[in-house]
């Protein structure tokens, strides 16, 4: 007999059982689907698909009643932490509160039901949305134009590198190296490889900033450019950015800005003004389009004037019109690198981001940065006696602590601290990143968390540190539906589908 979909014992409200998979709930003969009455002639399948193309047997998906479908996924939702449940201070991820009005925008039938191949004349509202967003992002980044196609930050990075390449090639060059600081996010070097470049890593100095000497040492005319986030992944502002940009430009390289940390500097300083030529923006971080448990996001790439001609196409553009009314169309730049998305990018994510920008406005976005940085510095200061601050200088929107000393003293690693914090009712900070800090704990409170929440978070981390001292951290978390999971076992046994389970 199939498992019961009516037992709520897997919902933490009442129990701690496992939730059966939908395949275990499945029972032949059950179904949920209902399709519209169409009155289309009911030609038999045999007449529609020739035998040589016909599937032998239907795909055994699962067979459940709508009631059990609802029970199953509702219970699963109760086994999932989310911003809406509580703070989510994951460093580098910017898990801020996402205003619900953006959900309402994304659900508008006038936006959500438009086919991507609809002719421009029938999609003027969408084109207007994209053009408005592009303009706003360019203003925020200090750039001339942008492509909205990339579906996430990493896609933006690769797009940026291909732009670098196109720029190189247009000059008849074939540079081979891209410079990345050792604190960079892993997507940066991975993208460099896919862009056909080699990564040259430049180390950070004792300030946690790019070591200028080390940088100068690796710069030559084989360098296509440098990728940097600023503030960097240590949460520190690269003060020498003007000089860095000057040096890179001097050898003919381009400056690439990884926008994952733009939240810290909205309205304060712009990548373009710092000397960057290419900028990607993580809309799902800075512009509060919810992360969806792993996506979708959007990673538009904005560029300085001299790179506009290489942008992916087709691009949404405002057309000249005689009557003064706005008209929009598509245009592909002459020397475009081509498409980087099957259609126009993650359009509904883009619409959310525009709503977010409109509701905040210039002043509101500046406040976002201020409060994000205020919160991070408060946490930094408050916890500086509990954990070691990785670098002894004020941070921007996030702060990296090291649990290395605690680890040595008590045996409890950053990982253990994270698991202990779960029991305190908080999602843990990022652990084990950036790689250059031992036992890193990277806290990004974001601007939407209140002072009280910061205090509660700090107190919770203090209690966890105390528990580490007592040696009682190891069994944590004890209050969650499952306890500490064996990651190594997962890789060793590799069961990635229900069918591989037996």
């Amino acid at each position, binding site marked *: 007999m199939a498992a019961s979909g009516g037992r709520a014992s897997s919902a933490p409200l009442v129990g701690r059982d*496992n939730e059966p*998979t939908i395949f275990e709930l499945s029972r032949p003969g059950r179904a*949920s689907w*209902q399709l519209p009455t*169409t009155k*289309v*002639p009911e030609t038999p399948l045999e007449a529609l*698909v*020739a035998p040589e193309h016909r*599937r032998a047997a*239907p795909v055994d998906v*699962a067979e459940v009643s*709508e009631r059990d479908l609802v029970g199953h*996924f509702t219970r699963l939702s109760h086994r*999932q*932490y*989310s911003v*809406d449940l509580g703070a989510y201070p994951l460093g580098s991820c910017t898990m801020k509160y996402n205003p619900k*009005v953006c*959900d309402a925008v994304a659900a508008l*039938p*006038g*936006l959500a039901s*438009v*086919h991507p191949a*609809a*002719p421009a004349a*029938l999609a*003027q*509202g969408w084109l*207007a949305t994209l053009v408005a967003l592009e303009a706003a992002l360019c*203003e925020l980044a200090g750039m001339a134009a942008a492509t909205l196609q990339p579906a996430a930050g990493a896609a933006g990075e690769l797009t940026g590198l291909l732009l670098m390449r196109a720029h190189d090639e247009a000059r008849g060059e074939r540079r081979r190296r891209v410079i990345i600081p050792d604190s960079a996010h*892993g997507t940066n070097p991975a993208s460099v490889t896919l862009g056909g470049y*080699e990564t040259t890593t430049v180390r950070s100095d004792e300030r946690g900033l790019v070591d200028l000497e080390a940088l100068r040492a690796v710069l030559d005319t084989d360098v296509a450019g440098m990728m940097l986030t600023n503030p960097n992944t240590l949460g520190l502002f690269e*003060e020498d950015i*003007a000089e860095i940009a000057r040096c890179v430009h001097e050898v003919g390289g381009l400056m690439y800005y990884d926008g994952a940390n733009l939240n810290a500097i909205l*309205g*304060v*300083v712009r990548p373009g003004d710092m000397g960057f030529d290419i900028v990607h923006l993580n809309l799902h971080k800075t512009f509060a389009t919810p*992360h*969806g448990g*792993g*996506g*979708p996001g959007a990673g538009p790439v904005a560029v300085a004037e001299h790179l506009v001609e290489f942008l992916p196409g087709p691009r949404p553009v405002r057309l000249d019109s005689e009557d003064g009314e706005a008209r929009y169309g598509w245009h592909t730049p002459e020397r475009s690198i081509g498409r980087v998305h099957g*259609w126009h990018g*993650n359009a*509904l994510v883009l619409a959310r981001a525009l*709503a977010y920008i409109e509701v905040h406005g*210039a*002043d509101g976005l500046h406040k976002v940065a201020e*409060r994000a940085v205020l919160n991070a510095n408060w946490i930094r200061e408050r916890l500086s006696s509990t954990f070691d601050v990785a670098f002894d200088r004020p941070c921007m929107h996030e702060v990296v602590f090291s649990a290395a000393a605690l680890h040595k003293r008590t045996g409890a690693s950053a990982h253990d601290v994270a698991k202990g914090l779960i029991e305190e009712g908080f*999602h843990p900070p990022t652990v084990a990143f950036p790689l250059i800090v031992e036992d890193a704990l990277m806290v990004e409170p974001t*601007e939407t968390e*209140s*002072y009280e929440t910061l205090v509660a978070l700090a107190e919770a981390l203090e209690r966890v540190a105390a528990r580490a001292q007592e040696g009682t951290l190891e069994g944590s978390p004890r209050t969650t539906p*499952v306890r500490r*999971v064996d990651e190594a076992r997962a*890789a060793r*046994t590799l069961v990635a589908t229900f*069918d591989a389970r037996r």
Partner: protein
Amino acid sequence: MPDYLPHTHEDIADMLGFLGLGSLDELFDAVPAALRLASGLGLPEGLPEPDVLGRAAGRGAANGAAGLVCFAGAGAYDHEVPPVVRALAGRSEFVTAYTPYQPEVAQGGLQAIFEFQTMLSRLFGLPIANASLYDGASALVEAVNLGVGVTKRGGVLVSAGVHPQWRAVLRTFAAGTGHRIMEVPLREGVTDWSAVEKESGIGVIVAAYPNYLGCLEDLGPARRMCDERGALLALAADPVAAAIVRSPANWGADVAVGEGQPFGTPLSFGGPYLGLFCCAADHVRRLPGRLVGETLDADGRLAYVTTLRAREQDIRREKATSNVCTNQTLMALTAAVQLGWLGTSGLAEVATRCARGARYCRDAMVGIDGVEPLSGATPTLREFALHLRLPAELAIERLAEEGYLGGVALDALVGEGGDGSLGADAARHGLLVAVTERRTRDEIDGLVAALDKVLR
């Protein structure tokens, strides 16, 4: 007017005091004054929520296509998405979660993705399915990267039956990886593999099933070429059609990719969609993107976790199998819910109804004066291409006046002037028509009548 920031004046004063700062501005002392924005952003002031919602609704109203009966496809389809799927996939726990870095508090999302992987694996017949990629096009790029990585050969034969925009994306990214992409032309709607018999150094062969013109091709020749050359067969498969036609695995595909939008995601002007990626077990260590696996917790209880992370960029950095980090998890979860709702019988039913509608529509349309089938007698499934007396873009414009989004102009897909196998005339006059299970007989009859009128 309030905003989303909780800081009261007292909070700010307290916090600055604690930090020994005199103003919020001092927080940015590390930013060189010379670089700072002197005069603020050149953006308007913030608007209250209802105004912003009103604006967005106004933009929505300016999308004429939203009100039309949709016969457009080309990889994006107007399928039924029931309220129950929207309600479940829209639960805030799923929507506002991050990537499951802490599995103890992410079992819900992880299990849903595990179920998605299982469903996709069953659909495509391959044992491994990842947790999603950006879209069908990006999945194809990753498939080719995987194939080249496995075979260490950079030659890639791509059927011109693969969606033209996906091929374009493939070309774009090949500029970085250096793959040699060679297109294999279509003849009468099917790939003419004989045209590339002499090519060597081939690591991957890519075909589509059905191809973008809706035709079901015999993939035997492609598989044989792969066997002869030790190349991998990568299939771009329509996941709805897959419910009733042979699976990628059944054709011998090593990798199968697809666009998962038809499983619960609205048309959304093209995104966010869902890149589907499946492969044979041999290649799992080269798999791009995330993978959820099963394990045990400290108490021996079954648990889920992202696994084989050593492939990923946060660990392997420049040696990673792919740079994909954030993917389209919510769409994968949505697909799991939608597939759960459809179930075994519903999935087959949807596919069959699409095929029925397409057949009914095609039969009626080819009877119209000024309409010819574009792919000859080749069997098509849920979508088909016609050659119209008029330029297709013009026909679409006129059909819109009658209330229909009558299809997709081939021109718009392949670019003016056609591509390879599709001559300029065929591209200009080619119309791709898709019929989903949502289209009623009345709607189809209406479109047919409208087309007849338009072509007169």
